[in-house]
């Protein structure tokens, strides 16, 4: 497993979030401190006890409202394969991980680990990420066997076609490999009620740098979808340069489309860690009410 030096952050950790001052969700261009805003929201949420967090009043101690220190729980492991271009958007990680930390309880690290399919550490990766534009060389039988074992027994793979040409380039190679690894399973469009659309945000359409498909595809085994595939170049929408500027414009939807890509990214990460948690009956009435079903 390689640990490439992450691009130098333009700001400190706190400042790192500042690059989201142009909040992809809100398109807010206000450059004021996000920390104070975050604290403001935090306090507001605390005071609005009962909506999502039942109660912050606890008789235990005065310092109890502080949360536990952050420790890494999640990282991206990107597959380095032969042929084609395995790393079309090398700078996608920071913004997504910052968004993940800002919005969710997941403690991730801005650490992209590059891994080959023959690496024994592959089985310890919470999320395998595979991106590309062009066709790539077929996996070896050994690589296919490892990937099949990993995915069949609980592993997770997010594939991102950054070119978005159906039947060509990366799409062609990736579908070929999936049909080899799962000969009895077909890559299918994930239905609107799939847990990945509901794991954190309620998503009805899929964003990205481009809008080839308004949906995700995947291979589902029983209740678990170990392979999720996008052709909208999600990482292109997440990619940001060292100065905090978005590298690619999102077309045709602009920043709303980028915000949607971030929502999808968060939902995919949450799904990779919580599985079909949102399919539990306890969630049904809430989700139905919110979706006016």
């Amino acid at each position, binding site marked *: 497993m390689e640990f490439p030096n992450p691009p130098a952050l333009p700001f400190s950790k706190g400042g790192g979030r500042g690059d989201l001052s142009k909040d992809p969700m809100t398109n807010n261009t206000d450059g004021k401190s996000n920390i104070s805003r975050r604290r403001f929201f935090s306090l507001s949420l605390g005071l609005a006890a009962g909506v999502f967090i039942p*109660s912050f009043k606890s008789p235990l101690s005065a310092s109890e409202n502080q949360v*536990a220190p*952050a420790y890494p729980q*999640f990282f991206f492991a990107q597959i380095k394969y032969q042929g084609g271009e395995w790393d079309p958007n090398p700078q996608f990680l920071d913004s997504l991980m910052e968004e993940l930390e800002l919005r969710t*309880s997941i403690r991730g690290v801005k650490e992209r680990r590059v891994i080959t399919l023959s690496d024994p550490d592959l*089985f310890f990766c919470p999320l395998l990420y595979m991106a590309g534009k062009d066709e790539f060389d077929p996996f070896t039988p050994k690589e296919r066997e490892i990937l099949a074992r990993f995915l069949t*027994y*609980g592993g997770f793979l997010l594939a991102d076609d950054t070119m978005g040409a159906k039947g060509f380039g990366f799409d062609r190679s990736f579908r070929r490999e999936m049909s080899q690894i799962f000969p009895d399973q077909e890559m299918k469009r994930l239905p609107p009620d799939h847990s990945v659309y509901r794991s954190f945000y309620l998503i009805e359409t899929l964003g990205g740098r481009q809008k080839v498909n308004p949906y995700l595809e995947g291979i589902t085994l029983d209740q678990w979808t170990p392979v999720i595939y996008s052709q909208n170049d999600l990482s292109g929408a997440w990619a940001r340069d060292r100065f905090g500027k978005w590298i690619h414009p999102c077309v045709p939807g602009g920043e709303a489309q980028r915000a949607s890509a971030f929502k999808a990214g968060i939902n995919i990460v949450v799904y990779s860690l919580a599985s079909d*948690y949102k399919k539990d009956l306890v969630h049904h009435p809430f989700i139905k009410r*919110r979706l006016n079903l």
Partner: protein
Amino acid sequence: MNWNHIVIAPVFPFWVILVLFLLGLALTVVQYWSIQKRLGHPKAILISLLRLITLSLLVSFSVNPSLMVRKEEKIIPALAILVDHSQSMSLSGQGGKNTRLDEAKALLLEGEKPLLKALRERFEVKLYAMGDSLQAIGESELSGLKAIGKRGDLNDALEKLGPANSLFLLLSDGNVDWKGSERKAPPLIGVPMGDPKGYRDLSIKEIKVPPIAFRGRPVQIDVVIKSHGYSGITVPVILKNGDKILTAKSISIRRSPGEEVTSFSWTPEEVGSLPLSVSIPPQFGESLTLNNDANVTLKVYRDKIRILMVSGSPSLNYRYMRSAFKNDPTIDLLSFVILRTPTNIINVPLQEQSLIPFPVETLFMNELKNFDLVIFDDFFCRPYLNLNHLESVKEFIRGGGGFAVIGGPNFFGQGGYDGTPLGEILPARFAGNEGYRRDRPSGVKLSRLGTTHPITRFSFDGKGHQNLWQEMPLLDGINLLEPKSSGTVLLETTDGMPRPILVVGNYGKGRVLILGTDYSWKWYMGMLAQGKGNWAYLRLMERMVRWLTRDPSLDPVQITMPAKRGEVGQEMGVHIRVKENPSSASKKMVSFSVFNPEGTKVVSQIRATAQPGEFLGSFLPEKGGIYKVKVETAEGHLEEFLAVAGAVEGLDGVPNHEHLRTIAEATGGEVLSSGKDVLREAESYSGRNKEHFVEERHLPLWSAPYLLPLILALLGMEWYLRRKGGMI
């Protein structure tokens, strides 16, 4: 001599005898012709006649004549007096002063001329006590006879005593077993005891429960109540589990005598062997109140293990545990994952969020009783749960619930559970200020106790088992714990000073566990990477759940109770199976104790059977009620309850004189109404059935002592006449 008394039994066929006789006659005639010329006609006739008589006598021996002598003799009639001393004879008799047995004793032994003495003058009397068994007793034992035990078996008594007796006298209240009899038995005179009109009683005749029940599912319990002497009243019927009242209802007693059936629908909330009882309060004027209670045990199983899991954040630990639980059909999982903390900022309106409120109040104050196990997975509880919630969890555990804490960085947050109600009951505490370490991976190994504990011992191959754990992938993060004295360390780190990773303990009736890492999922994927499958992780999770919830499948000891309900005075057998390492289980290592309904230990035995690890425990219940059976081994112990029917439980004590009449009439006897003279009636029956016997003897005539001299005399006279005639 009466020729009718002579009987013959020929030793040869008649025709042979006839031929012999004719031969003799022919010889005599030939002799006559040969000697008449020399001796003259008269002498020849005389000699031939003597010869013919001699030959005829000899031939007649083959007819085997004998004289039959018959002698007729009368005998004294034998009378068997059966005194019923079953439990119902202890109830009040006529007038309510004495018991029915006392009445019977008084009838036989008291008065100016005691009946027993008078009967002895006319009969050959034998006394029998009829209860659980039939016993011959002497007169002296009669006065000390006590009314105990089950109703007697009259069929058995008549079959045993019938051939030797000509008359039975039964002193009973009619509560005897009688199935009718096709065999001819001597007449039975019934002497009824007790007063049916003065008897008043309500009794629990029967409790009908299903053989097994499932927790959380209603179970129907039918109760049959018998009434005598009460009608038009309403009485409460109470269903209890041990001392705890489960439910009660009122029923109307409509007729007397009669039976009422009432049903309880009750939902058991705990698993195991439950000691249930049904009771009716004693009523005014009730003759017998001890049969107002009845006991029964109900075996309750859980259909599913219900788990409440709260995870501090989405994580691989959560996902793999969830997968393990969801794929187990015996587990019902309700999980809540904290998707965002108070510091996270949500940037979309409610309609675009899938987050739901965390219903802490409902879950932790009202619904905990509906779960078997609560798991906090890397969950920093303080922002979410207040002191009352934590106290509620503590109570849940004390009451028998399971509680597991899965470690991680959040677990340690703000001192973890230290200083909270849960901190007191967890089997380990944090070793220092640093609660979580992620700087260097740690391997794990089984502790000494871990090699034998049901959670971590997957097989009896100790070495292979230890190797399995040492092959497990390293843990990237662990909580730095130290066990409390109440904790048992099962897994510990292999580096440097061993640190506990898996610690278990008990609190109240419940069990607690800490798995001090959020990287146990690596035991799943790491073993998969090595091509060794995911079974070890899945088995660990399954065994953790089953141990925490006291699932019987993981109990080192299993007890099989007798299928039939116990009865006082009958030995009860309990089959014991020691699952853990049965090869090393010996009688000395298995302790078997039995406690009676008052909680006093009673005498019991245990012996090994031919099967390894299997034992048979036994004891003799001396009173009715719920007995507790406790089996202890080095690996653990198990308690079960066993219902033993009381001596009067379900006893229908009403004097059943009609039953007595039916029996008496079936044998040709009668039931004596009050005032009738027992002695005269007995004499009357013995007179009708006067008994005598005839002695018949056969005296063989040919063996008579005078026959031989007679034959010799005849031959001698013949010889003399011949000699005198000059023929010799």
